[in-house]
């Protein structure tokens, strides 16, 4: 699966007619300059050589060479941006899961107006461009109410701290984690304040899908025999819903989480740009602005690998949680 995805990316990048080097320059550019660029990037070799070189570069974590400046490998640059993306997606995911499960359960329990409003919320939030929601947040909470900082990961003057374990100094780059581990409370509060708006905007947009899935699964589970049996035994409705039905309704949601991770990343690209968080997504957008298309493609490959690995983890997790899959 991963190989197929990587190969598709390769075919699109190198085999189809279309040339990132030509896109970078005006049509009137000196052909010698274009040729030297093409040569430096190794794009003038035969396609099959390029394919193996590309896989070789991936194995070494290089993800291709940047067209800007001195043809540096893209990989390390992406990795330095990754913690911010990870932090944003984790918190957004938590927001999405909480909103989704709560609203979904709520809707499934109360057919009628409440249920219909939950459904409409699901459709509405699904249609929201995440950066538009982010802008509204910035406008209301940042600019009008002055409650939260509008952009960045930390306020100027607050420096990220590393934490020590014995003689080693660690820095995960995930600011909320680093600051807690090193006991730097000011940094923690500052980092959280910067994260609230982007994580909520992204989380809310993703939550639409969670709401729908939780609701559908809940409805199905509530109708199943074991719930009827629990009712017949005279258990309280609340116990039935939260400890019997919800637990079973959540299982399929884990699979969906795997699929939604892709949408979460796409949303993270836009959210990071909107809130000026220096993550992989805003790196991608930066490179687009500099017309550095080889770096753009390297980042795309990185995201492809990331999505495939998350998919694999979700599959394993699912097999662990649901014994039926292992049979």
């Amino acid at each position, binding site marked *: 699966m991963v190989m197929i995805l990587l190969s598709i990316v390769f075919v699109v990048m190198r085999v189809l007619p279309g040339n990132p080097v030509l*896109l970078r320059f005006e049509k009137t550019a000196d052909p010698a300059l274009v040729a030297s660029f093409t040569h430096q990037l190794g794009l003038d070799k035969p396609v099959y050589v390029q394919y193996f070189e590309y896989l070789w570069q991936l194995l070494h974590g290089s993800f291709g060479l940047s067209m800007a400046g001195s043809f540096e490998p893209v990989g390390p640059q992406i990795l330095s941006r990754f913690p911010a993306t990870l932090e944003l997606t984790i918190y957004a995911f938590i927001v999405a899961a909480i909103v989704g499960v709560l609203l979904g359960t709520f809707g499934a329990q109360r057919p009628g107006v409440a249920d219909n409003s939950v459904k409409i919320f699901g*459709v509405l939030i699904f249609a929201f461009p995440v950066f*538009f929601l982010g802008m*509204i947040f910035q406008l209301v909470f940042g600019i009008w109410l002055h409650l939260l900082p509008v952009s960045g990961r930390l306020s100027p003057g607050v420096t990220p701290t590393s934490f020590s374990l014995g003689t080693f100094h660690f820095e995960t780059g995930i600011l909320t984690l680093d600051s807690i581990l090193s006991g730097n409370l000011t940094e923690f509060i500052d980092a959280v304040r910067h994260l609230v708006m982007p994580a909520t905007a992204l989380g809310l947009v993703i939550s639409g899908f969670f709401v729908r899935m939780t609701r*559908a699964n809940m409805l199905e589970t509530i109708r199943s025999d074991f719930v009827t049996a629990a009712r017949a035994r005279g258990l309280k409705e609340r116990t039935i819903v939260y400890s019997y039905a919800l637990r079973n309704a959540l299982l399929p949601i884990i699979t969906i989480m795997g699929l939604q991770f892709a949408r979460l990343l796409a949303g993270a690209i836009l959210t990071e740009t*909107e809130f000026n968080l220096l993550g992989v997504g805003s790196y991608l957008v930066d490179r687009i602005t500099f017309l550095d298309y080889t770096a753009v493609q390297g980042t795309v490959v990185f*995201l492809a690998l990331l999505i*495939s690995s998350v*998919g694999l983890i979700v599959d394993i997790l699912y097999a662990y949680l649901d014994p039926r899959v292992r049979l």
Partner: protein
Amino acid sequence: MKTLQKTREKPQTVSVMAKLVSPLFGKGYGRALMLVGLGMTLFITVMSVLAPVISPYDPTQIGLGPPNDPPSAQFPMGTDQYGRDMLSRIIWGGRFILLVAVTAVVICLTIGLPIGLASAYAGGNVDRALALVMDSMYAFPGLVLAIMLISVFGVSIINDALAIAVVFIPSYFRVVRSQVLSIKEMPYVDAGKSAGAGTPAVLLRYIWPNVISSVIVIATVNFADSILTTAGLDFIGLGLQVNLPDWGIDLTYGRQALPLGVWWTIVFSGSMILMAALGFSLISEGYAERTNPKLR
């Protein structure tokens, strides 16, 4: 025999039309959603088509009013940072985004559908290989795939539409394929075959009418997603020309004036994108609700 064939054909065509239109009649939540959605999309379409007639000013005219002027009687939606009239820009701004969406959906329908139908009906190794490729593409975020394609081919309306179409073909393929796989095993399909129906007849007359509802659902979702993806591409700098009146571009550049408290540029352009995407989503949601009783 001849009369038999005729009686069999007639209800068939009726039922396909009925599938398209019938969810609009009767009562209920699904119908209300569909009507609201249709209303929104109709409003936006009419507005975009009539833009040259109804727009009060030239949307690209710089310095019509003072820059960043709040909504007033003269400029009901205010002006942007170049003093252009926002109302005119909003009226004109749907043209490209909708054009890209329509083109993308048409490309998807003409490529994704036949491949899905044929692949599932024929089965075998080709089908399995295609499904694998489509599944890997499906797992990939649409926006990122579109970014990659545009980074190779450059920005233009047709490239935008193609990139978005490539992103969505797998979902058409998957939906059509899974439906056909189950329908082709139905006894009535066997009955048709034994009555002498050839492959084209089986596909068109027996299988297609049962796939069409899911195709409508997926195409409307696709519309909404194309609009959001195009706006996303505008936002990250892969949009069309900067001076075109376009909701996505106005939203992107409008945020530069956000710290000054200029809310009208982003709120109006953003709401239009939201309304367009929401309109199509509502149609899809309502239609699914009406045609698939399991959702109720």
